[in-house]
Each structure stands twice: as C-alpha cells, then as structure tokens.
C-alpha cells in the first residue's frame, strides 16, 4: 500500500526552474584553449556542464547562474566571463 503522507515530488523536477535567467555574466568556453581536463564539469555547483563527443565541455545556459567558479578554476584559462546583454 502506498503511504499518502508528506509531500512527494518526481525526481529531478527542479529542472522546471530555469535558473539561467539569474545570470549577469556568461561563461564563454574557448575550444582552442581547452585541454579537456574535465575540472569544470566536476566543480560546477549547478552540474550544468556536460561533455560532447569530442570531450569538450558544453554548458547548459538554461541553468548556468554565471557564478564564474569554472572560469576561476580553469587551469588552461579557457573560460572567459563576459557581461551578458539581454
């Protein structure tokens, strides 16, 4: 029997909330400078950076809040934060 107490929500439903609208600065990834180390993918607090078939990091701008942790930590300086025009 299913217990009908408390509040339940479907797993990962937070995706309804597109936090990309919070952003002021947008990270731009340079494919030339990137060494494919994968550090940005691991340390993004949103977990919104994925890897394409070449192993390059691809940010999901629907969720990126523009915090700049990736740009700050990138060992190859391949990520630039730029003011986003909306």
């Amino acid at each position, binding site marked *: 029997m299913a217990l009908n107490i*408390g*509040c339940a*929500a*479907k*797993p*990962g*439903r*937070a*995706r*309804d*909330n*597109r*936090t990309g609208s*919070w952003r002021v600065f947008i990270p731009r990834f340079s494919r030339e400078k990137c060494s494919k180390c*994968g550090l940005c993918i*691991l*340390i*993004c*607090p*949103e*977990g*919104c950076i994925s890897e394409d078939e070449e192993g390059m990091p691809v940010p*999901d701008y*629907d*969720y990126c*809040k*523009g*915090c*700049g*942790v990736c*740009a*700050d*930590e990138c060992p190859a300086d391949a990520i630039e*934060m730029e003011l986003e025009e909306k």
Partner: protein
Amino acid sequence: MVDKSLELFDCGHRACGGCGPALAARLIMKGAGANTIVVASTGCMEVFSTPYPETAWKTPWIHSLFQNAAAVASGVEASLKKQGRDEKVVAICGDGATFDIGMLCISGAFERGHDITYICYDNEAYMNTGIQRSGATPYDASTTTSPAGRNSLGNSRPKKDLPRILAAHGAPYVATASVSYPNDLMQKVERAVNTPGPCYIQIHTPCSTGWGFEGSKTIEMGKLAIQTGLWVNFEMVDGEVVKAKKVVRKPVEEYLKVQKRFRHLFRPQPNTEEIAKIQAIADKNAERYGIDIKQKPQE
C-alpha cells in the same frame, strides 16, 4: 570506484551562484552512488534543493525536522535491515543541525551503532535563516548574532571539535573533506558508505553569501582554509588519525583578509593581537595533525 559522470543532484535548484553546499551535494552523491536513500535536516540545502513541488534529488530523499535527521536515518536503516535490503542510508545536514540542534539524535544513532553515513556540510553558521552563529562558527567571525563592533570582535568561542566527539562514540570511520578537493571528497564518501557502522564526514563548504566573498572564489576559499591550517583534511579509523593532508602553510591573514566576516580584524589597521590568536589555532592544528611539509633549508 567512484563514477564521476553520475549525476544524482540535478540542475534548477535555487542555491546562490557559486554555492559550496550545492557542489558538495553533487560530489557526495557521486561518491555514494545511485543505491542510496538521503535523509536531510532542515537547512540551506533542504530549502534550496526541494521547494515543493520541485526537487533536485534523483534518489529517494526524506526530510522531517531540524533536529532528527540522525533518528530518521536510524529508522530507515533499521527497516531496510529487517527487510533484507541493501540501500545505503546517508544523512546530509548543515552545521547548525549537526553541531547544535541535532546533537542528541546523532549521539543516539552513533551509540546504537546504526549502519548510516552522517555527512555534515559545514558552512560555519546558520546561513539559511540569515547567518546566525553556530557551534561550528570559527573564532572571531562576524555573524548577525555575533556582530563585530565597538564592543565585540565577532564570535568569541572556538569551533567545536565534532569529528573527535563522534570518533569517541566508537565510529569506525570519521573524516573531514573540502569541496576544493573534489576527488578526495568523493573517495571519502565512497569509503564511508561502504564501511559498516555509523560513519561521519564533515565537509568544508564555503558560503559566498555568509562569509562575504565573490561566488567565483568558492574553490579558492576552501583551498586557502587548508593552506593556512585553519581547516585540516584528515581521516580517522577507529579513533586514530591515519592520514592528514600536508601543506606548506601560509599565514592566516591570507584567508582572513579576503572574507567580509573577518574584515573588522583589518580595519582601521590590522588587529595583530587577534590575528595572532587565530594563527595560534592554525599552529595547534598543524601540530596535532602533523600537516607541515618540512622544507629543505635553502643553500
């Protein structure tokens, strides 16, 4: 082995940009794996990850009260054991819930020896309710309930040594970690969930809002805490320290001067007397855990 590509904490949560606890949640779940039931206390992480009807978690997740996460985790574990199931039970709670409010339930759960992993994400104050001091707030940090001013230098008490308190309960594995060293963090979580009995991990999670620094500097702040000796990453097995991260130590000023919560120690001029007291805390840590790398004398 830790599967780094495993994402069990999804996008769309409402944490501040550059949130240390949000990063900790992702890394903890990578280390714990998919066969996990998460128990949360009230706190920043609970509020930003699960505003009803949204949830950022992709595993079973339960929240009851501020103080009883360890008791709920105990119950979940006892029930799973009775049913012969093998899910791992992980309680993830903030420092307020761990150091102050939940102490009674944690002590009970550890004393009864439940097979749970209790993880404290330590951002060193009650951030969710507006930065009030907790038992984990470091000495001299300014918070809204320990404000620095003419008659006060901020928090007057040192940080509670919870890892040792829980090791004294007979916990088989107690560790500290930092979001700034993600691989180390994931490995420690993996080890804890696979160790039978109650295990404890305390994770340093810099909070840009509460500590007063740019959100992009979260990782840098965690590294500075370790490099100055004010946070030590160590592992304790059966009450003995078996491993501690060694560093070439920097003076504590480098960590203090970049945070708004310690700004009063540098204005109008550096308060050398207080900074020396904080340096003494770092020196004591270094001595206790033997973290200093001996440098060869320069010829």
